[in-house]
């Protein structure tokens, strides 16, 4: 017999001091251990020690926040895969994630805020239980306010209350992309593509990336797979003209594909990996795994997909 799907929960725990953290997190973890959930905790060492004093954490898997918060798409995809597996086995994934908001660029903070919103759409099918403790004192007020838009519920003492300001994930996601992308540099290598022959496009990109940008092979190969996927999409669903641009930015190689088509409303733009078993499952979300960043803008003026792979240590002397 399989149990009915468990209700998905994604709760914000704004707290002040260790007592506030433990008051919310301990009952959350304890309930998971009692239910036989798979329990993961992404916390600082300090929080781990505090939790260890309060409950038997032998069955809790602690993960390193530095690793967890390295790449939004990869982290979301990995956690979602775990949640799918747990759900298939009739169980549940329970996740305590303590985001680290300091020392992050504005763009990084925005991507993690977006991820908080996407989580609601992505994990719903799995019935996962997720709690995000935010330290009120050390977190910018704007970030806390935003967390109330990306979490359906807030934990307050021993009560759970709905967030009146919660924003539907599609709407939140669209708001993240309201600003246009910065224009490509004038020096960008530009290629107008009349008939997309993927073989020659790859040869062209690889030549330019190797010789002009000195992009190492490993990121280059990931980028070639990513570009091929985007060009294949543009060929199948987009509209001419298709333009390919490449340039080097500090510590990154950037490649964008622009076409005259417009994507359908309420797309997830590859932010939500499909469940296992879906035919042709690898797609845009896998492109997000391969690249360091993927930015998409679509509208009246056409669609632009901008792919970047980080190249730490490679001199961007080709501009």
């Amino acid at each position, binding site marked *: 017999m399989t149990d009915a799907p468990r209700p998905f929960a994604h709760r914000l725990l704004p707290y002040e001091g260790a007592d506030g953290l433990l008051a919310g997190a301990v009952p959350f973890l304890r309930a998971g251990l009692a239910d036989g959930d798979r329990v993961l905790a992404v916390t600082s060492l300090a929080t781990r020690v505090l939790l260890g004093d309060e409950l038997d954490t032998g069955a809790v898997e602690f993960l390193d926040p530095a690793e967890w918060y390295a790449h939004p798409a990869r982290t979301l995809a990995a956690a979602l895969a775990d949640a799918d597996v747990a759900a298939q086995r009739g169980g549940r994934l329970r996740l305590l994630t303590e985001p680290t908001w300091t020392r992050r660029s504005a763009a990084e903070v925005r991507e993690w805020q977006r991820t908080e919103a996407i989580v609601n759409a992505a994990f719903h099918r799995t019935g996962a239980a997720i709690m995000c403790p935010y330290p009120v004192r050390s977190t910018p007020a704007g970030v806390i306010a935003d967390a109330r838009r990306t979490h359906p519920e807030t934990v307050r003492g021993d009560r759970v209350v709905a967030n009146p300001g919660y924003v539907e994930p599609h709407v939140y996601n669209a708001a993240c992309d309201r600003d246009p992308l910065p224009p490509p540099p004038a020096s960008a290598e530009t290629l107008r593509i009349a008939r997309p022959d993927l073989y020659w496009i790859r040869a062209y990109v690889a030549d330019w990336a190797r010789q002009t940008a000195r992009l190492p092979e490993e990121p280059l*190969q990931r980028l070639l797979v990513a570009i091929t996927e985007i060009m294949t999409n543009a060929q199948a669903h987009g509209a001419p003209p298709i333009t390919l641009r490449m340039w080097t930015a500090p510590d990154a190689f950037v490649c964008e594909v622009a076409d005259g088509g417009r994507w359908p409303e309420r797309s997830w733009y590859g932010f939500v990996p499909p469940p296992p078993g879906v035919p042709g499952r690898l797609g845009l979300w896998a492109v997000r795994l391969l690249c360091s960043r993927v930015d998409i803008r679509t509208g009246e003026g056409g669609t632009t997909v901008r792919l970047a792979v980080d190249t730490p240590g490679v001199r961007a002397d080709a501009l």
Partner: protein
Amino acid sequence: MHWASGNGSAAYAEPTRTHRDGQGMGTWYDTRYVDDVRPGDHAWLPYSGAEERDHVVAPFVAGALATNEKIVYVTDAPAARLPGMSAFDPAAFAATGQLRVLTRAESCLDAAGGFDPDRLGRTIDREVARGFEAGFRAVRFTTDFTWLLAAGADLTGLLGCEDRLAHAVSPSTVAMAVCQIDRRRCPPDRLVELGATHEVRVEGNPLFDDGTLRIARSFAPRGLRIEGELDRARHAVFAEHLGRLLAGRRGVHLDCGGLGFLDLGGLNLLVRHALALPRGEALILDDLPANVENVIDMVGWNRLPGLVPGRARGARDGGATAWA
């Protein structure tokens, strides 16, 4: 020099495809598809089983009969059972002299029943001359020399014979030869010596080859070899051949050693076919180049149900030349 190539007749004016050489084996020879073997070629076929042997020998035999060329096959097996004969009536072709199936006793053994390389040389010279006089466009010769190894004979006799064959065939504008050898019965160092006496290695015709992607059967282990780049432009043809391989239960290995690029759609295609396999079976990706493997690692093998990494890169010769 015995590898000096003879001039091809007009029918072979098209340049042959010489797509790989044997330098990796520590020797020198061109590798040619069986349909591209031409007069002057003294070729060898190291095979790993009857299926692989027939995959090459059948088109060699059938190709002769279908194109006004004579075929000389030295074997003790009956003509009707030879590879490539299924669509032909041996008696009809034997009557015209286009098909000559000679027993070892009548072509290459001495009075005491021992192997006589000189006699084989004379047999070939005679058959080539007769074929030429009879107006055949070319004369193809083939035999399996594995029995010499099985008989425990010293390889020296065979090497001398190959040298004699090379002298008979290479300068010729009419003759071509394919020497079959079961590599499982031959020690690797002797195999290299044997290979060095030929200037061409013959392999089966590819299932598909358009210059960008090449798909061919592989036999040790059984499956397909994919070389070049696979993207949406060639998904359909690849799916067709992979589907046929799996439906015919002809192996689940993909030799990816020459795969330069594989797109996400290609991975989806592999997963789709792998999931249709009987429970517990997987598609095995052998010899993955680093650039393809890195991408798969980052996508995650766990997201590719039914696909497993196989033999590691570089193990190719160690595995294929294993002998008993």
